Every structure is written in C-alpha cells, then in structure tokens.
C-alpha cells in the first residue's frame, strides 16, 4: 500500500470546469500569436533562459499548469496541437483555438446530451471538410511566396526565400533548413547529393576561408570494408597521381592511412579528400548503393573478395565537384541517369503507399539523395534568440508550403472556416455548435489586431475578408492571405477529436500532490 499514489476524484461540472479552465489558459496564451497581428510570447525555458517565440507549439510546450486537473486539460489540447503539426507542419494555434471554442460553445448548452453533441460535431466536421475541399485551389509557382509568407507570420522577405527554395528544386526537390553563422538568411541550391559525413582531417581543407575541402572533377572511390593500410589503396592512389586527377575516398580509413594521405596532400603530391563511410545501421548499404549509382562508382568490399590491388580505373566513379565542410559533404553530380530515374519512381511510389512517419522520413531522405536537387535555406540572425525564433518560423513555412503543394490552399485569416460556417447547413445542435465554433480563428485574428468583430459583415462575400495589416477588405487569395488546406483540415479534425473526447468525460482522477 505504501507506494500507491493517492488519487483525487472530481465529477461532473466541477471536473469539466477545471479541465476547461486549463484549456482556456493554454488557448489564451497560444491564441495571442495567431494572425498577421499576432503577438510574440516571451517564455523562460527549462534552463531559465528567455525565449521569444511566435510559434504556437513552442508556446504550448512551455505551459505546465500547477493544478493537476487543469494541467490534464491543457495537456490534452497540446496533444491535438502536436498531432496537427505532425500531419501538416503547422496549424498548432488554429487547432488550439478551435478546440477551445468548440468546448466553450458546447459547455454553454443547457442540459446537454453529450452523445448527441459529439455526433453532431463529428458530422459537422465532415461537412465542413467537404466544403473546404470544394473551395480549395491548386497551388501554382507564383503563390508559393504568399503561402510561405503567411507561415513565417507575415515576413515577406523570409516568405520569398522559402518560395524561391521550392521553385528552385521543383516538385521532387527537398527543401531543408540550416542555421548559419552569417547575420543574413540566404538560399543555397545544390544540384547534387548531400550526405552527413564531414571532414576527417583538417589537412584536406582547400578553401581556408570557408574551411571546406573542395575537389574539382574528382574520381570517387567507394569502399565498404575498412581500409587499414595505405598499401590497400596504393595502386588507386598511384593511378590518380599519375593522371593528375583528384580523388574522393568514401570509406572508413585507419588513422595511419589518413595521416599518410594528409601528408601526400599537404606536400601537394595528390588532390585527395576522405569522408567516412555512411554510418552503421540499416541504411548504410542503401546509402552506399545510392552513392554508387549517382557517381557511377562500383562499391568495393574486400570482405566479399574484392581486391583493391587489382582495382581498375573504371571501377572508380566521378562527380563534377565535391564540397566537404566539418559536418557534411555535398556532391555535385551531372545529369541523372535512367537507372537512377527508375529508382526515383520506385521510391516515390512507396512514399505514396507508406504512411508510417519513420519510413516516410527514410524514404524522403532517399528521394532527396537520388533526385539530386536540394535547396537549403540558411537562416542567419544577429543573436541566438533571434536565430531560434526565425528558425522556428522558417521551419513552419517550409512545412506549410509542402502541405500546400500537396493538397492546395484555401482563403486564410480564418476566412475559409468562417465561410464554411455560413455556407454549411446545420441539422443538429452539435453541428450548430461546431459551425459557431469555427468562426473562432477569424475572431481571434481580428481581436489580436484590435479590430471590433461585430463591426464587420463577414457574410457578404465568400472568400473576401479583412486584411488586418492594411485594414482593407480584400479577396483573400488574391491578396495572398491563404492557408494550406491540409493545415486547416487537420487542425479542425484534431481539435474536434480532442474536444469531443473531453466532452464525453464526466469524471477526472488525478494523482494527489503532497
């Protein structure tokens, strides 16, 4: 008995009031960041350092309430927000605001029938989603900037950067974010493969300013088995020296072999760079195979009977350029070969069939390797705090743009949901509650901008709304105020799911705090 935790029980109104109080606190904090006029939140991280953010997830994650029942409510809501981010990459704040408003409206009903309300909310969500699907439009290249801009919390400069990134790599390309030490943000497009293997020895550095080892038109040697002695690769090295070529070795080299190469390199005897073989694990062989495909090299494994002494020059691959910094290597490869295209198609196919997140990440990485086009958004800022805040927003924007390319866009600023609330018919009380609730994001955005909600006539024109920055009524999509459909949809679904779950709860049991 001694180690059993004493529980506290609350029932009925008392329980739901407390859970709702927690939700209200969280929603209030998070909702202040919503919209073009959303505010920043200053929060203290676990180490006591101040962080400024406009990112809903960061705000939500920072909130832990003292009252255990309130905290349970807040935690449930956070779950919905996180799930939205996982699915769509953005929309935390919208999901939070929606869940809060559904609960608020549902609790306001006198003598409620929880089951009926729950059913009504669920059918309502499906109706709204059907409506959203019908009004959504496909994204073209020109709209990318606007989509990205709205997710960077209306920073046109960063939005353009993210838009450029997506345009430069096309539909198959992968856009990544990276923090840089420069004060400005920039875009780097790499026509090639990027692998997470960095410099192995500072003597290989050729560009002292950037601290990178660069090779022009290097031959590529891929060895899967470890190389313990310089003699093993002597014939290859001599071939390279004789023909005055550069050589990139991708293999695990013994320290003595590395220092022998470093000596040859620093004496100007050979143009060489060494990067480690891909890390151990299930992907190792796959990465090797991909590198072999892209560079045209034959993968050599002495454990399987290959003999490096007998290696012929045609077993070496080649690429246009290799650039290695302290943490990664980028290989610029030429035109994609037909056999590579085949594999790309295969990977794309399995990407559409596979929905497990870790497999998807793996496949996307492989796709990025093979499609050989990567845009890297380098985030720079003047201070650590600014950098973190900028990076959060750019990450959001990249995800949102990805989502928009996937499913299309709807009018932003809460207008799509607002229109839905007037254009979808409510048949039951639950549906009515839901339709009332989905006006909340619109109202919150206006509130954050300090505009009186009542003074507007939102019913007038579908797709039209107020630009809270210029204070003019505009066609939202034309004005570039848009949301990715995927974000809106999954925010709505997840908000509905958590709200209905809480609604059907009548008893809360929490651990007693001593």
């Amino acid at each position, binding site marked *: 008995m001694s180690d059993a935790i004493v529980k506290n029980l609350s029932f009925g109104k008392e329980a739901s009031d407390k859970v709702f109080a927690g939700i209200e606190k969280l929603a209030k904090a998070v909702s202040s960041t919503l919209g073009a006029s959303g505010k920043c939140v200053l929060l203290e991280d676990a180490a006591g350092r101040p962080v400024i953010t406009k990112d809903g997830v960061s705000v939500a994650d920072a909130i832990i309430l003292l009252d255990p029942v309130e905290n349970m409510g807040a935690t449930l809501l956070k779950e919905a927000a996180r799930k939205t981010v996982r699915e769509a990459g953005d929309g935390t704040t919208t999901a939070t605001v929606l869940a809060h408003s559904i609960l608020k409206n549902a609790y306001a009903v006198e003598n409620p029938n929880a089951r009926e309300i729950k059913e009504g909310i669920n059918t309502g969500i499906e109706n709204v989603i059907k409506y959203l699907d019908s009004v959504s439009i496909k994204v073209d290249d020109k709209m990318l900037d606007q989509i990205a801009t709205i997710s960077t919390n209306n920073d046109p400069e960063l939005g353009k950067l993210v838009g450029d990134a997506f345009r430069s790599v096309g539909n198959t390309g992968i856009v990544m974010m990276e923090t840089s030490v420069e004060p400005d943000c920039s875009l780097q497009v790499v026509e090639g493969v990027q692998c997470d293997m960095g410099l192995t020895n500072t003597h290989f550095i050729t560009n002292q300013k950037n601290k990178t080892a660069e090779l022009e038109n290097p031959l590529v040697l891929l060895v899967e088995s470890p190389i313990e*002695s*310089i*003699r093993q690769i*002597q*014939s290859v*090295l*001599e*071939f390279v*020296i*004789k023909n005055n070529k550069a050589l990139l070795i991708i293999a695990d080299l013994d320290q*003595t072999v590395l*220092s*022998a190469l470093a*000596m*040859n390199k620093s*004496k100007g*005897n*050979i143009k060489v760079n060494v990067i480690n073989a891909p890390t151990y694990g299930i992907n190792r062989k796959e990465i090797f195979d991909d590198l072999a495909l892209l560079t045209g090299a034959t993968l050599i494994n002495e454990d399987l009977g290959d003999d490096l002494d007998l290696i012929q020059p045609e077993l070496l691959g080649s690429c246009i350029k290799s650039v290695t910094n302290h943490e990664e290597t980028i290989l610029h490869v030429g035109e994609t070969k037909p056999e590579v295209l085949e594999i790309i198609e295969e990977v794309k196919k399995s990407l559409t069939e596979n929905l497990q997140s870790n497999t998807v990440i793996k496949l996307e990485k492989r796709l990025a390797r093979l499609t050989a086009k990567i845009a890297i958004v380098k985030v720079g800022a003047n201070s650590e705090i600014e950098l973190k805040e900028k990076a959060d927003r750019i990450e959001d924007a990249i995800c949102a743009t990805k989502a928009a390319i996937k499913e299309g866009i709807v009018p932003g600023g809460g207008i799509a949901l607002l229109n839905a609330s007037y254009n979808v018919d409510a048949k039951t009380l639950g549906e009515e509650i839901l339709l009332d609730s989905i006006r909340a994001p619109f109202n919150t955005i206006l509130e954050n901008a300090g505009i009186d909600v009542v003074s507007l006539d939102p019913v007038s024109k579908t797709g039209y709304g107020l630009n809270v920055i210029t204070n003019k009524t505009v066609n939202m999509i034309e004005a570039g105020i848009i949301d990715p459909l995927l974000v809106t949809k999954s925010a709505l679904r997840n908000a509905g799911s958590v709200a209905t779950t809480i609604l059907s709860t009548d008893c809360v049991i929490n651990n007693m705090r001593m």
Partner: protein
Amino acid sequence: MRAVGKNLVIQKIKEGTTATKGGLLLAESQRDDIRYIEGKVLHVGSEVVGVKELDTIFYDRHAGHKIEYNKETYYIIKLTDVVVVL
C-alpha cells in the same frame, strides 16, 4: 669496439619519406608493413660468416637492440637476423 661471437654492430639507414615508383609519398612509419629494412654493417663478430664490415644488408626490423657508444647509437643484431647482403 669489436662485436663478439655471432653478433653484428650495424647502423640503420634512415630514408625518411620516400616516393613509391607510382609517385605516392610514404613516410618511414607508413612503410612498416615491410619486414626487412636496410642497414650498414660496422663490425662483425669472430663467428660471423658471409657478412663483412661495410656491407649493406637487409635485416629484420624487429630484431636487435640499441647500444650507445661515444654518444652514438648503434644496433646489435644476430647473424640469423640478416637475410640479404647487397
């Protein structure tokens, strides 16, 4: 200084970093997969046959020990460690 029995006094020939025929530079320590290295014979013991003073020989790199004489270091190896006389 005179070597006794089957011992030889030799001096290691240090080559430092050398290039292979194919042009690859290798430092002394990177060539340690070659077991027999060059040395110059300074003195031979009375029982030594087939090797005479001032011969250049190949001997086992792991054989022998150092001595210091008149502030100079030499190596003492046994006749069995010598494999080739040039």
